[in-house]
């Protein structure tokens, strides 16, 4: 177990190192800091002087080193657009994105698990066939189309749900949250469902396929032969073994979830990190782009590690020996 964590740590440092390098290169190329700082028209001598002052004429390695040094202290530069420190700008919007992503994940799990399990246990039931047909349809509908259809139906035609913004916020635990007000939750529903629709078809199919494979295993037959309570067979024996591939695939989807959160936030004008990132990309606001990439990189590494730990918790073969059988 210790060995696993150590290996993880090294991998983490490597990944963060690569991300920081890419982020640094992007920051240098995106937008012109000189122009932003000193206005449009500036003489060549001024430019050269500014370049020297800002250290932009030093060798690459040195500049990168400085960048890392500042980053470790939390200084990721100032946004060209907002004229404010970049990192706090991104972090201020982190709760909004997290609530969106967590809401979507919850919806995915709450729907895909029962549907997938049912489709595996009763494959010939008409509801199972319907569910499978819907998933094929689901993977063919791009997420922004789902969003548009959702807005058309629930916002424009029916007027049940709002289509923009986060609604009324409250801060019972210290951060601005939309989870504790009815208005906030109403605003969360459409975006979270839209984001969930990205993963829902995949997970329903995955759970059904894995559960079907597990149900065909000998140990399930043996569990029946033992005369166990059927409920226990479905849950503890069958479903628990389904968790492993579920965790693996789920872990691989985190990247997609984060990326498509950008799209979702943009469509619904959800004030999260992703929306700010896209706007900054369009505005060539380098420091904010960098800040976003680094924050996302850290989140990614943390969640990857958590997924690995979770996997080890479920599979005793990994927990005890540290490596897969």
């Amino acid at each position: 177990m210790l060995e696993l964590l150590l290996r993880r740590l090294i991998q983490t440092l490597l990944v963060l190192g690569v991300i920081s390098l890419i982020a640094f290169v992007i920051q240098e190329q995106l937008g012109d800091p000189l122009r932003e700082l000193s206005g449009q028209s500036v003489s060549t001598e001024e430019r050269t002087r500014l370049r020297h002052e800002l250290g932009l004429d030093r060798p690459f390695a040195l500049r990168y080193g400085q960048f890392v040094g500042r980053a470790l202290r939390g200084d990721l530069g100032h946004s060209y657009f907002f004229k404010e420190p970049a990192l706090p700008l991104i972090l201020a919007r982190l709760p909004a994105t997290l609530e969106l992503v967590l809401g979507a994940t919850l919806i995915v799990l709450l729907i895909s698990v029962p549907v997938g399990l049912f489709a595996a246990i009763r494959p010939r039931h008409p509801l199972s066939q319907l569910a499978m047909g819907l998933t094929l349809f689901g993977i063919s509908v791009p997420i922004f189309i789902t969003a548009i259809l959702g807005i058309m139906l629930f916002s424009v035609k029916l007027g049940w749900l709002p289509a923009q913004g986060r609604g009324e916020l409250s801060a019972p635990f210290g951060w601005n949250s939309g989870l504790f007000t009815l208005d906030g939750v109403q605003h969360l529903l459409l975006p979270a469902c839209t984001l969930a629709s990205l993963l829902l078809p995949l997970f329903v199919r995955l759970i059904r396929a894995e559960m079907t494979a597990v149900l065909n295993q000998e140990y399930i037959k043996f569990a029946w032969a033992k005369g166990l309570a059927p409920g226990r067979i479905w849950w503890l024996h069958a479903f628990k073994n389904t968790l492993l591939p579920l965790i693996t695939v789920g872990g691989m989807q985190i990247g997609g979830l984060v990326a498509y959160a950008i799209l979702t936030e943009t469509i619904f004008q959800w004030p999260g990190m992703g929306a700010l990132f896209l706007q900054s990309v369009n505005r060539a606001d380098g420091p904010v782009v960098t800040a976003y990439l680094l924050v996302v990189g850290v989140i990614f590494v943390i969640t990857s590690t958590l997924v690995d730990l979770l996997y080890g918790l479920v599979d005793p073969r990994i927990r005890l020996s540290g490596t897969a059988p």
Partner: protein
Amino acid sequence: MNDRSSSLGRQLLRAPVALAALLLLLALVTASLAAQWLAPQNPYDPASYDIMDAQIPPLWLAGGDPRFLLGSDGQGRDILSIILHGSRISLLIGLGAVAVQALLGIVIGLCAGYGSRWLDDLLMRLADVQMSISTLMIALVALALAQSLLPAEHYQHHVPLLLILVIGLAEWPQYARTLRAAVLAEKQLAYVEAARLLGFSQRRILLRHLLPNTLSPLLVISTVQVASAIMSEAALSFLGLGMPITRPSLGALINSGFELLLSGAWWISIIPGLTLVLLILCINLLGDWLRDALDPRHGGHAP
């Protein structure tokens, strides 16, 4: 090969859903390729449309106009025409991106499967990392860089090529892993050993023996990848980073209609949206059928 393709053909005729998907797909593709002749209007020629004709609803609604069968957009352009032209762009970019992915992925997959253990580990590590970063993210960052490095007109002009390259470079891992798996499986088989013993060169074994037998799985993932590439391009164009509204693909068109959604001109987004969905659905249905037909375990015809 003849034997297999004719039996595949016969199987297709017996699967009504896949057949319908294929026919619909062919219809869409032909219509889009023949856009120049089929479209009632040329949406790229500013002289052929008039802002006064903006936001006319489709023919079957009140206020419809026979000149605009599916309605007109915010600039007065005919939606049907844009859909035809836009589908062509979407298809071309999708196919182009898959060509790039396939080429890159096949080469890397061959190297990994046939090369040294160390090389294999390295390449597969790389593939894993790249697969966990979403294509959308890679594309966003790459396009952002391109936008800031190239002057505006350059960028606009080269957007289709950039999209093909970016989506292609982002998705090679799928092909690489599939090919590598197939190569590793085939390598074990006796005929490769026999060919080697008979003195055939590595390259000949590769090209004449291995490659034809790995074709099946490649074909299957190609359909999925085309659908995925089309979706990626649509998403990027929808976000404003892909095809511009002056030369719109389906995604760009949907984007242009988005703000007008709440004010009632729903057809500008919804109708091209449904076309996009139809296109992708047909490709996916075909891909599903192909996978079942080519998989010997599912009762398809084995090679």
